């Protein structure tokens, strides 16, 4: 199977990135976590967008919880 023109969604230093196969193979495997491989860049970008939206939702929920606790404490 040919991966040379494929794209990866990875996480490196707690940040999500989309990366070409060429760049991905140059990385040390211990320095990143590979999520998924996609045939094209738009597929990988769409997946990264979904993951970032997840992170935003999780962060919003945390902020909401903190605000509720703060309001109650006053």
């Amino acid at each position, binding site marked *: *199977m*040919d*991966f*040379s023109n*494929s794209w*990866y969604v990875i996480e490196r230093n707690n940040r999500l990135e989309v990366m070409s*196969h060429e760049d991905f*193979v140059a990385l040390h*495997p*211990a320095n*990143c*976590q*590979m*999520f*998924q*491989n*996609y*045939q094209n860049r738009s*597929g990988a970008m769409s*997946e990264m967008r*979904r*993951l970032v939206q*997840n992170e935003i939702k999780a962060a919003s929920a945390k902020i909401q919880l903190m605000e509720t606790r703060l309001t109650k404490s006053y």
Partner: protein
Amino acid sequence: MTTISHESHAFSGVWASVPTPLKADLNIDLIRLNSHIRTLFAKGVHGVLLFGEMGEGSLFDVDEKVTALAYLIAQGIPANAIMLSASCTNMNDSLKLIQQALQHEIHGVTVMPPSYEQEISEQGLIDYVDQLIGRVNQANWRLYLLLNAQKISMPDAVIEDLLRKHPNHIVGMIDEGANPTHTLDLLKSFGDKVDISSTHEMNHKLLKSRGVVSPLANLLPRVIIGMSTSASQTQAHSVPGLKVKQGDERVQELVTLLGKYPSTLAMKFILSIIYRDADWARSRPPLGELPLASREYFNKAMKTFNLNTSEE
């Protein structure tokens, strides 16, 4: 150019028995299925078994399976790296599925005769496979008998008879039973004629077979590959904060963890954790989704297990 070779027609390497992701309307999510398979291949898995027990094969009709197969091949998944389970509830569906799948020149199909409310005779089992192979009526296709004594018992005499009659079509047997003695007995009796494999990862080392079918390769592809190839059997997997463990210890841990729940639901739920994608946890009724208590258990258990997807 970076490629993973799928040139060989031999059954070799690790073949993942993949779950089937679903969209909100409960139709197959072809995009997720494609990216999951590509990801497994990128991690070194050699092939995939579609719509087996792990892929909830009995919950999809022939047209859905053929459409998914055609889509994956059109998207660049090598046809000879795909095996398809053609175990349907009746012969005509199996026949239709095999005939359409073979047009895509896939590696092969797996078949288990359907179970029935009444007892099935040995001759009935032989007739089923005879009829199926006769009606497919094509040369050069590979059939793997799927054996699962809990669902339907296939005695050695039946296997012997089928192998004698169909040496050009039946090329292997995949034992879904967990008992290593049974798998080893198959190997002793028929290993010189066909490939013998098991879907239980802990039995792979015993078999020393060239090809293995593995549900856990969806979660720990590199570990399963390491366990199944003698050169890397001594490789240990580093888990932060824990002692360094061998691949088979990690697999045993995961088997123990999964053993308490229906495997497909548990597997899909863990994939939903790995991919951070709740949609992966969806299954068709009557399977549905894991109950809340089970999901909480798995969330905690997977944190303890500490799955390191960059290594495993």
